[in-house]
């Protein structure tokens, strides 16, 4: 194999075959993919969940993960948010010429490992090469089955429900931003598949009303969207939001707000309040859920405007939170 990707790797000819054989087929190795047919034939289910996502992160590799791990986690977590257990994933790679073959190998390897961890099979793939500067973009599609006969929807938060999060806020965002700023720390991305947490909640028959992974825009954006979708009022408490001291000070240095810091391995989970303790216990015992916390409740909607998100502040004030405005760039002044 050459050291970098060239246009020839996208020709469809021998060089493409080498690339696929040496990197993708080798790493993703499974019966379905190995047949190298034009389409994968897989077992089905009466009703499925489907999703798609594209991953365009810079840098491609960052502390705690890379775009390969990220694309599996993102896709898997989207399926889990509907209560579906992820089964199959397809991936389309767009490589820019100049990409180092070793980098691609590491990313594909990490993708394969994450897929195994999340218990999904990569059943189909495609590769194209474009002119450029060594970039790499991945588009995925994912299929999940409703193994527990529960379809979870963003609209189902009810008055009195308990709002939980599966862990600390902001690690992924802080990691990506930290790599561009002259601030040294050992914050690692939280990118993780949340299969274990969701599987355990559903298996133990917790009355889960809403699940949503917390990605771009952070916790506040997700909660505000959920409050709107279920036309209810959410009230959380600042002091109960789990944020590591390191991420908190990272935000402090750059004038950022942990409520708006993105994650790639955290979930909001809204359950019938009767199940709050049980849900918390299950989440804490699950992989990637040890820092889970109960952060607030859905309240009876008495506001004129539906879909409000408030936080109780440490001094007893009430803050009205909206979705992220703009890009969340660091500010100094």
């Amino acid at each position, binding site marked *: 194999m050459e050291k970098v990707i060239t246009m020839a790797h996208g020709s469809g000819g021998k060089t493409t075959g080498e690339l696929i054989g040496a990197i993708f087929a080798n790493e993703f190795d499974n019966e379905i993919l190995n047949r190298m047919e034009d389409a994968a034939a897989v077992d089905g289910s009466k009703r499925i969940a489907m999703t798609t996502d594209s991953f365009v992160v810079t840098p491609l590799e960052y502390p705690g993960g890379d775009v390969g791990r990220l694309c599996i986690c993102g896709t898997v977590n989207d399926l889990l948010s509907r209560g579906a257990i992820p089964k199959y994933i397809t991936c389309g790679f767009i490589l820019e010429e100049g990409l180092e073959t070793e980098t691609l190998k590491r990313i594909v390897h990490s993708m394969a490992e994450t897929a195994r961890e999340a218990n999904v099979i990569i059943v189909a793939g495609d590769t194209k090469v474009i002119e450029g500067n060594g970039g790499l973009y991945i588009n995925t599609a994912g299929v999940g089955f409703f193994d527990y006969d529960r379809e979870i929807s963003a609209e189902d938060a009810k008055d009195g429900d308990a709002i939980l999060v599966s862990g600390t806020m902001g690690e992924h965002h802080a990691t990506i931003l930290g790599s561009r700023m*002259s*601030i*040294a*720390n*050992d*914050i690692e991305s939280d990118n993780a598949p949340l299969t274990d947490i969701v599987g355990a909640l559903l298996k133990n028959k917790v009355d889960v009303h809403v699940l949503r992974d917390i990605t771009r825009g952070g916790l506040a954006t997700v909660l505000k969207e959920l409050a709107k979708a279920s036309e209810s009022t959410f009230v959380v408490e600042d002091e109960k939001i789990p944020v590591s*001291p*390191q991420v*908190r*000070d*990272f935000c*402090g*240095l*750059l*004038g950022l707000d942990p409520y708006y810091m993105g994650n790639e391995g955290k979930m909001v989970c809204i359950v019938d309040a009767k199940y709050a303790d049980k849900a918390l216990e299950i989440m804490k015992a699950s992989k990637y859920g040890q820092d889970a916390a109960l952060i607030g409740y859905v309240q009876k909607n008495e506001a004129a405007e539906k879909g409000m998100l408030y936080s109780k502040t440490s001094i007893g004030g009430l803050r009205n939170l909206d979705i992220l405005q703009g890009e969340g760039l660091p*500010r*100094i*002044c």
Partner: protein
Amino acid sequence: MCVALPGIVRKINGKTAEVDFNGNTVNARTGLVDIIEGDRVLVHAGCILQKVTEDEADSLNDLMKELKAYE
């Protein structure tokens, strides 16, 4: 305006000092105030602006006492 955060001076390297903010290290520029290792300092835009002193709490207490008596 003016985001600034207190941190602890871990090591002084000539014109810069390693300042720790709960596990985030900034090589902050020195030169505006005399510091020693272990000092708590206020950092703005990668520059040490001032030392943080806790013994000034007295002057705040005096001010609050005065205000409380104010009618």
